[in-house]
């Protein structure tokens, strides 16, 4: 069981770092998606009443 603590620490760090990166990436994607939805909603409103956009 020599150095098992070091190995566990290294493995955990790798998993946590990759997981954090993935969560960050997912959040970025979600933000983009939401902004796009918002824009589409504005555009739809804009088409019915063009004056709103001015």
């Amino acid at each position, binding site marked *: *069981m*020599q*150095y*098992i603590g*070091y*190995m566990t*620490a*290294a*493995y955990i*760090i*790798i998993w946590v*770092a*990759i997981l954090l*990166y*993935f969560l960050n*990436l997912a959040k*970025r*994607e979600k933000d*983009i*998606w939401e*902004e*796009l939805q918002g*824009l589409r909603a*504005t*555009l739809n409103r804009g088409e019915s009443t*063009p004056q709103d*956009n*001015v």
Partner: protein
Amino acid sequence: MRRPYIPAFVFGILALIGLAIAPYMALMYAGMEKDMGFAQKIFYYHVPSAFMMYIGFALCAIFSALYLYKKDKKYDIWALCSAEVGLLFCTLVLLTGPIWAKPIWGTWWVWDAQLTLTLMLWLIFVAYMMLHSYSEDSLQSAKFRAVLGIIGFLDMPLIHYATKLWRTHHPEVVRGEEFGLPLDMKIAFYFCVLTFLMLFLAILFKRVSVEKAHDELESIKSEIRDRKAILGQLGSD
């Protein structure tokens, strides 16, 4: 609109399968190294991370050169994403390296060629990311980053040679052992390399799809701004 991005999905599945088997390969299948014990098992994750770091930075340089040559936005997106994913794996290398070094070399950090090169690459590509964040104009930022990506890549052999001349430590021995491995360790090691390659590709494709969406969003936003400006002018006339 939200299309499933097939390459990211396929590589992601393969990476997940690999990652599920990798601990078994590293811990059970591969034999125990006599002197280093469990610390040696860090290498099954550390070295593949280093390979992926090099692939990421090399891809960044290639796409950077293509971007400067062809001036196509898509190459810039690929260069940016390769650099970011390369930086992720570079960070993993820098985090796991000292954890291995502490029990084996007795110290967290040694200024040997490999370690110094990795640290310098990390610094260069953090600067690359800063150049991305602090630029005022996205077209200019793309060109500047491409220039830095190429310069950083060209610097790699020079940094390596310099630090080798500067400090000739023990890594040769260690790395020699690493590749003169018994067959079981070798198989486990190459399995991990393959798994990390899948992971790398999955993250890269995913990252590119996010960046493309971001790029699309930005162009829609600027188009809306333009239209509003025109409408505004019409309104005031």
